[in-house]
């Protein structure tokens, strides 16, 4: 009984879902180690990071958007657009790589900022604006080129092939970049006014406004940051694949959302940790690795497992939030009847 009541009390703490994710990750790693030889070898673990560095960056951008109570379905397409634009600028216009990188980063941020402005100033729903943005970005990809454009620029090639070695193990520069982005994001989330404003807006946008926070600026910036991260992810991806292609990164936005949710961030906003996203990405990677190691399960199971995890986490989040409501006095606002604000109100 003590366990149940202390568990229930713990479930109200903000770090609870993130802690559950870490426990889940550990369990999965142990299960993998028990089931398959060489699963827990350090290089296998590092390969997780190498293969998913781009997803980590994209998911970090998505974390901020979701924390603010919104959603961004365009990140996968912006990633692809970034690879395409970069490849085009490098291969066809022969721009220097540094200029190319700066350009695409600005493009990603600008794309995101435009969507953020539409969402905030015209009160449009985030999911439809970013869904349309997703289509726009991918369409622009194909407009530039239907086929893939191979990148042979020396800088990109170097980034693709470099191995940073230490203690007999290696990682790619992308991993370093991704971890730097993570560190910066964590600092932003907990140490800057912008980050706290994001949490405040996710908790209650109306209160944030009344408290004098720069809601408009923050919301636009949050989507700009997401677009920026999508572009960074695009660059990392183009280091990995050395090509620009419209078919790159299909469904990455869903993976990013899954990573964020599984990492413990509530989809309704305001609760969660950016660090949790790392755990979420690792879990997604572990699922994929487990399936690869198993060999008997086809890779389609990855999607099903991710969907199942997403389901469990979403339902659990919902139940916890309902339970929290039941403790409140009668007439407290949020327990809306079915369908009431269950539409899109939170995602705008």
């Amino acid at each position, binding site marked *: 009984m003590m366990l149940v009541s202390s568990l229930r009390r713990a479930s109200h703490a903000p770090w609870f879902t993130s802690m559950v994710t870490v426990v889940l990750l550990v369990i999965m790693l142990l299960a993998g180690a028990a089931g398959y030889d060489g699963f827990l070898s350090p290089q296998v673990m590092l390969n997780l990071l190498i293969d998913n560095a781009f997803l980590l960056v994209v998911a970090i951008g998505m974390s901020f958007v979701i924390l603010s109570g919104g959603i961004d379905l365009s990140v996968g397409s912006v990633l692809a657009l970034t690879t395409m634009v970069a490849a085009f600028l490098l291969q066809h216009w022969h721009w220097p790589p540094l200029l190319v990188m700066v350009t695409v980063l600005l493009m990603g941020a600008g794309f995101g900022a435009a969507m953020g402005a539409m969402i905030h100033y015209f009160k449009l729903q985030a999911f439809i604006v970013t869904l349309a943005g997703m289509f726009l970005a991918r369409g622009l990809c194909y407009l530039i080129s239907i086929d893939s454009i191979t990148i042979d620029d020396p800088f990109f090639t170097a980034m693709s092939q470099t191995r940073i070695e230490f203690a007999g193990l290696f990682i790619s520069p992308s991993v370093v970049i991704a971890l730097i982005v993570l560190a910066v994001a964590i600092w932003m989330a907990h140490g800057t006014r912008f980050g706290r404003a994001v*949490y405040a807006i996710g908790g209650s946008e109306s*209160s944030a406004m009344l*408290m004098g*926070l720069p809601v408009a600026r923050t919301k636009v910036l949050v989507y700009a940051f997401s677009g920026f991260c999508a572009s960074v992810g695009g660059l990392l991806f183009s280091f990995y694949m050395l090509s620009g292609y419209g078919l790159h990164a299909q469904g990455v936005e869903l993976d990013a959302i899954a990573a964020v949710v599984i990492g413990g961030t509530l989809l309704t906003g*305001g609760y969660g940790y950016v660090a949790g996203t790392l755990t979420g990405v690792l879990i997604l990677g572990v699922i994929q690795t487990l399936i690869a190691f198993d060999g008997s399960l086809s890779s389609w199971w990855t999607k099903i497992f991710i969907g199942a995890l997403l389901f469990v986490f979403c339902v659990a989040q919902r139940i916890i939030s309902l339970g929290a409501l039941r403790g409140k006095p009668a007439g407290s606002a949020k327990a809306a009847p079915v369908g009431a604000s269950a539409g899109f109100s939170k995602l705008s």
Partner: protein
Amino acid sequence: MTMSVGAQARPMLELSGVHKAFAGVKALTDVGLRLFPGEVHTLMGQNGAGKSTLIKVLTGVHEPDQGKIELDGRAIAPASTLEAQALGISTVYQEVNLCPNLSVAENIFIGRYPKRFGRIDWKSVHAQARLLLQQQLQIDIDVAAQLSSYPLAIQQMVAISRALSVSAKVLILDEPTSSLDEAEVQQLFKVLRRLREQGMAILFVTHFLDQTYEISDRITVLRNGVREGEYLVADLSRLELVNKMVGVTAVDHRKVEAGAEALASGLSADAAEQGEVFLQADGFGRRGVLAPQDLELRRGEVYGLCGLLGSGRTEMARLLFGADRADSGQLRIEGRAVKLNVPRDAIAAGIGFCSEDRKKEGAILELSVRENIILALQARQGLFRVLPRKRQNQIASDYVKWLGIKTADLETPIGLLSGGNQQKALLARWLATDPGMLILDEPTRGIDVRAKQEIMDFVIAMCRKGMAILFISSEIPEVLRCSDRMLVLRDRRACGEYRRGELDEQTVLQVIAGEAA
């Protein structure tokens, strides 16, 4: 050291000659208000009196059409809540309006964090927050914990602390006690007294009579957008206060008499005795919302609920309709025990409910008048037993005729009708279900006199034909006139049941005020 009330010559905040109209309707007419430092000044008034408009003018949400606002001697014209806050006018709302997911310390300091090396200095934030709460409000809590983990009373303290930390000169508390229990109210009052001692000018908006007399130094009463007066609390008895809030003017008296005469012919004093009991409630209530109450409603009888705003009238109606769930007591309808968990249960049992908030809970704005009228009837019939269009038209046009609903035609979207006509249409919705009992919550609010008459005439006629009516209204003369029996409520509990004729306007106000006749 207590500032003696009235000793300060100059008010900290003074409004004078404030007029405000919305779309031609006057919300405030020549209203003034004086807030002195070191005083708790309570603003009182019924629904529609202009309280919230006045607050909004003070806090910069609305710009007054005419009038002056002076803060500490200087004229100000805040254009937004932020500006008002910056000037020193801070408001703590009923719903607290903080971020529940952030910590207590963050809610106090957000937007104004102390920084170190470009990073927020959390140690300093937490230390300062703890200090603030201890010094100003004498509460010691874990400021790093999430705001939502604390009960509403503590959250309000945090909101007050935030207001204070932005150097408020004037603190406005908008109905802070509505969701608090007795102990929490006392805690809040302790804090307010301390702040008062420190020289803060406090504007306290409430509708609880007892609390007003407990905490206030000065009272301003608003009625119908006009300032009835400003009084020192020692100079105003409860009866006088209630009189000022809802008192009937000389003009109204005549109307009331005329109306009463017109109805006298239609009313039969014996009708109440003859009807069978439709609904019987024993110990019916909900914790924190309504004290357990016994109730007996008979067919053919109008049962009125009378009391000031916030006394629990709507809460009782919602419980009887299943819109909220009761947690104590038994309900019997026509002898059978029932549990009303959802409105559908109540509707199936023959109860109809005309809500007081017709915009949010009544009208389906884009649907037509006809659709709105037949909606509840159709819902009861279910999905498949569709009312034929002819019959719908018949029902709708009948009620349009009987209630005098002014509409271009039956297909006009109800949102285009005036408030009064919308109300009539919603009334028609429930009448069309031929309920055994009809709950009417403020059915005549915001409606012109003639429409009021039409509605009440019709309701009473339906009643005499065998319906039980639960009638709730803020207009006491109306409740007195129409009810066969009446329950008076004060501060969420009943303070007496009376038959027609036992109370008149003066005595009912006495009961409400809690003073002996």
